């Protein structure tokens, strides 16, 4: 079994299965030089400091063990209510948050609505205020508009966890990706990570870039020139159009899902050509380092951005990402929900 890392005392109390959560669990260690979590919201990785990111990763390490127990539940968030508010179809992220909340004993309720709030006729703030009026502590939101999470966080008292806002950020995905990389590669500092695919429309890419660069990784992005956003290099990343060049010497390849409908916007001529030019095939893997790991936020278009053999191969950590996602989301739910407000 993995050695238990030094644990955050707050978290140590929270992971004790049998213990009732008492006031000691909320006392923050302010005088031991450690960073203290003060945000009711998690909106982006852009806004987090290196220390805050490390705090969540550390908490997640402690929480990961809970999911391996026979009784997968601790009372850390007992009596707290979390609402999943999803304006876009999502199965894995919503489920992951639901599992995370339940393992911490929070009550979780699901609201889903197709399309934006305006198409529903009710404003986003009104929807959220209605939920808040039921004394919900934390709202986990996915929404098609970039900035919607920040907008919502400004408008309500409840905490807001961004589960993906438009093409802006998907901070818990970024955190779970980093968590997985660190678990596998032991450190992030100096790690060479290449993101491949539709960078322009990817909230996962933006969160990865912010988080990884803050922790000292060397990040590359690679995709068709049409899917590389303007001035992305100003975020401190290197840009490649040729995936065979890009994968060389990399420790991690994080392969992004290609939205099949992008073809219509003339971003690339066909799925077939995309697969030929950018798909990570068995052949292409030979150009990468022997110990490279393959990541993907899912769901995978098999045979398009990622060959089935690679997705299921020895270097793939895709399912570990899913496992770690629960731990990371437990950590995020815990810190944001327990913050004094």
């Amino acid at each position, binding site marked *: 079994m993995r050695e238990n890392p030094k644990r955050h005392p707050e978290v140590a109390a929270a992971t004790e299965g049998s213990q009732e959560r008492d006031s000691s669990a909320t006392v923050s260690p302010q005088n031991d030089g450690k960073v203290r979590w003060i945000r009711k919201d998690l909106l982006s990785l852009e806004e987090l400091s290196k220390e805050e990111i490390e705090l969540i990763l550390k908490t997640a390490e402690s929480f990961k063990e809970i999911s391996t127990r026979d009784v997968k539940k601790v009372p850390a968030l007992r009596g707290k209510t979390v609402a999943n508010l999803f304006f876009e179809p999502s199965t894995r992220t919503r489920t992951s948050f639901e599992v995370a909340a339940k393992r911490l004993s929070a009550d979780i309720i699901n609201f889903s609505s197709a399309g*934006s709030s*305006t198409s529903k006729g009710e404003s986003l703030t009104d929807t959220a205020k209605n939920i808040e009026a039921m004394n919900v502590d934390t709202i986990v939101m996915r929404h098609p508009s970039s*900035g*919607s999470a*920040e907008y919502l966080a400004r408008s309500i008292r409840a905490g807001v966890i961004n589960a993906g806002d438009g093409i802006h950020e998907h901070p818990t995905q970024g955190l779970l990706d980093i968590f997985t990389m660190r678990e596998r590669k032991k450190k992030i500092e100096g790690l060479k990570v290449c993101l491949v695919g539709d960078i322009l429309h990817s909230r996962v890419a933006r969160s990865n870039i912010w988080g990884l660069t803050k922790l000292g990784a060397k990040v590359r992005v690679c995709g068709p020139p049409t899917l590389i*956003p*303007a*001035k992305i290099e100003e975020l401190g990343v290197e840009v490649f159009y040729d995936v065979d060049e890009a994968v060389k010497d990399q420790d991690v390849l994080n392969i992004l899902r290609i939205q099949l409908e992008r073809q219509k916007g003339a971003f690339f001529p066909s799925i077939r050509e995309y697969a030929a030019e950018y798909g990570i095939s068995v052949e292409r893997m030979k150009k990468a380092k022997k110990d490279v790991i393959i990541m993907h936020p899912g769901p995978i278009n098999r045979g398009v951005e990622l060959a089935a053999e690679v997705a299921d191969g020895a270097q793939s950590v895709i399912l570990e990402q899913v496992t770690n996602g629960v731990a990371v989301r437990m950590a995020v739910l815990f810190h944001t929900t327990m913050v004094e407000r």
Partner: protein
Amino acid sequence: MKILIKNGYLVDPKNKLDEPMDLLIEDGRVKKVSKKITEKADQEIDAKGKIVCPGLIDIHVHLRQPGYEYKETIETGLRAALKGGITGVCPMANTNPVADSRSDMEFMIGESKRVNLVNLWPVGAVTLRQEGKELTEFGELKKGGAIALSDDGQPITDSNILRRALSYAKKFGLPILAHCQDEALFCGGCMHEGFVSTKLGLPGIPVEAESVEVARDIQLADLTGGQLHFCHISGRKSLDLIRQAKAQGSKVTAETCPHYFHLTDESVLHYNTNAKMNPPLRTVEDVAAVKKALKDGTIDVIATDHAPHAESEKDTEFDQAPFGVIGLETSLPLSLRLVEEKVLTMTQVIEKMSLNPACVLKIDRGHLSEGAVADVTIFDPHKEWVVEKDKLQSKSKNSPFLGWKMKGQVTDVWVAGRHILNNGVIASER
């Protein structure tokens, strides 16, 4: 009725006056401008320490009536204009229904007469319902009072329609005010395409969405000999094209708005919907280019593109919020900053806000020559004030300058010799 404005500092670009002068108004017209006027008047105003200038003209506003009275009405819009020292406004045609008929022109003018504050010179649509397909009846629109034509808010995508419009409008002497936007490049964007849009994950509008269409429109103006005026120019590339065209003899004119010379796309950070307008706020390089173009005369006119939207419409997700900001009450002090920044002289500011728009519209305003209609604005160039929601006359409060400290405040306004703003108070309130 004789009104004597004494001890003011008079700025009248047309008559090259930029010095202390007294001004005498009689029966709604300028009677005399002279160093010292001793004539007895019915009313005497002491303008010591203030600037006396021709009434400002805003060639580009949206007053939202009919159809969107919850955003603004002709009455609230004209009150906002008056507070800003503006004695004449040109409301655009994107009302509901679109102002594309003679009766629409007559309605707006009738309503402005009822309100009886500043002048309203309506802009008729170029195409029916602003759909870019069939021309409106320019002759009828003109009979109804249209002073110019524009599909502002919508570009005229079909080059041939714009060609015909520019050509046909020559018969009526009507300028066409062009909103330049290549629809395909615009592509559903909601802010300037650059580092900030990449960071915020917002679909970007490249600066070329404007300049590509500016290039086309210059050529159509040359082809037809029609009068073309460029609305709200925001980007450096457009300005290079307009500068070059003017140097080669094109008769085009251009306007910009205060937000394009004071703000950049950084104002959008944190998804500030009050910094969302079309064309979008651009980069520091573009701001510098706009200032340079103001200075070298590439930009003739400062307008506001006053675009009121209700708070509930702006209080939403950024991509859902409508484009547009208000500007009538802040355009003069924001333009006066250009004097402090040594971009323009006081005369040039007044010229771009009064004489030049009058020239584009071909109306005999924007100057204080003897016999001219007495549209006069007086402002205190040193008076400081803060932009506050509650103090704005406009029905909507969507200004990116809320909380900004302004320097320069309008105190008195006459329209055709009627003293409608008296020491900051609107006449009807007295």
